[in-house]
């Protein structure tokens, strides 16, 4: 199960209805939230992907279960396209890649669970930005925490939040998963 904000049922519907319903549903979401579209029309995969590219939404991936295609899309956000980060401690993707095996390091992935499911750094802990405050006790204070998201914006906010809560050894990984060339794990095969 991939956690999402909204699920659209387009099963049994053929083209163009899966996209029409997707487009309608995405208007009800906040930027950054994730939509799951369930469809049985095989053509919907290529079309959803192409539609997401043309509209700027983030197509995360598709899984097939018992003949049902589940497409995952994250609504576009304006803030992420601006490269403004405030948190002073920044490391590059390459620097993180070199530190990955350090036992005193923890990689915290603050993207949505669906984004994490379609590809994350092996061993990274998943806590979406929106849940960070409630789950902050899951994090060890004695480790170096590398916070990663897609482009460095959400991780910037998360790093600030961690510092506020007394974590002292926190680093924002820039740019993050959008440019990650290192090893990846996926929850889906």
């Amino acid at each position, binding site marked *: 199960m991939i956690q999402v904000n909204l699920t659209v049922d387009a099963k049994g519907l053929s*083209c163009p209805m899966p*996209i*029409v319903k997707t*487009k309608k549903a995405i208007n009800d979401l906040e930027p950054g939230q994730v939509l799951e579209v369930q469809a049985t029309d*095989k053509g919907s995969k290529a079309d959803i992907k*192409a*539609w997401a590219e043309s509209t700027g939404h983030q197509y995360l991936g598709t899984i097939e279960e018992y003949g049902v295609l589940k497409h995952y899309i994250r609504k576009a956000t304006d803030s992420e396209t601006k490269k403004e980060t405030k948190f002073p401690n920044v490391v590059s993707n390459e620097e993180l890649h070199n530190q990955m095996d350090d036992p005193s390091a923890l990689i915290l992935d603050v993207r949505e669970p669906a984004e994490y499911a379609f590809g994350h750094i092996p061993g990274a802990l998943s806590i979406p930005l929106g849940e960070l405050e409630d789950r902050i006790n899951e994090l060890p204070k004695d480790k170096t925490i590398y916070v990663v998201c897609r482009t460095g914006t959400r991780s910037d906010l998360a790093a600030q939040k961690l510092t506020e809560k007394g974590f002292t050894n926190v680093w924002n990984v820039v740019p993050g998963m959008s440019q990650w060339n290192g090893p990846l794990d996926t929850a889906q095969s």
Partner: protein
Amino acid sequence: MECCSRHVPMERAARYSSILIERFFKFDVRNESDFHDWKIEGENFEYINVPYFELIDGVNSVIDRLPKEKEVVVVCAKGGSATFVAEQLVEAGFDNIYTLVGGMKAWSEHLHKAKVYEDDKMKVYQFIRVGKGCLSYMVISGKEALVVDPSRFIDVYEQVAKEEGVAITHIVDSHLHADHISGGKALAERTGATYYLMKSEGAVFDFEPLEKHDRIDFAQVQLEVLAVKTPGHTPGSVSFFVNNQLLFSGDTIFVGGLGRPDLGGKAAEWVADLYDTVYEKVAAIADDVIVLPAHYANLDEEMSKAGYIGDTLGNIRARNDMMRYKQKQEFIDIVVQNANTETPPNFEDIVAINRGLKAVDIEQQQELEIGPNRCALHHTR
């Protein structure tokens, strides 16, 4: 939403497909990659491609790009999105909008029946798969019918046999097809007909090996079907020579070219076979014999005045220097140099299915067959 778009009936679309291709302005609303992979093609081809999902909020962005005087056919994958877009165009004031019923899927699957030949001994129909360029045939004599290179739409052949009051008793595949799924086995199972195929093509189910037959026997003595081994496109390619008048040439000889010998990964070996086939076996066949191939590349150029794909062997030879005056090494060099690097889509899966090594459901069959045909060498132009 009121539905007022007119539809292009498939039968009409196929019969006048050259007109469809030339007369209509095509508005393809599939996504760009599907469109670039495979589309309705033809001379004087006018089209635009804007995916339907960019037109959900309205068609204003395209109305300036569509002609008002010329008829416009909206094309999509299965028909639904074309109707969706067509309805919006009609609401926007266009009165020249049609949709392709069933979309590219129907276009790919439709068989158009054309009469090729009739005398007091036999009648021959050609089935043109317009969207894919595949040809199959039915030869009727007395109360029996022979089907050559059937597509997987076998109910079409059964329906025609019923209309003609004949039984399908013999089925042949000219070779192991790489571009489409053969209906031979399924049609044989349904009708009880004998299914002939060269054993060397590697099929694993029961069939009658053509290695054992130089001719196929009919109850009617008027029909003589010679199985002429014509290796080249594949080692087990066979042509069928009927009553010294018609040559069902499979993928060995086309109206505008020869069968490509490289799909098996042994181009050098097979091209030498192709040379021997053309310069020994086919050279011995008379000029007035009508060649009926398993594919065509260009409907307009290859369609005869009588409305079928085919030509006399004399005309084909006259147009194709590769079939005359070439020394073996020169022939081989030209073929190897001109080898098409693109293979038919999914040809390895399709070959496995046609050999009986793999079975897939109807939906997967449709998926595998979508796309262009690429079985010919077009070095005549």
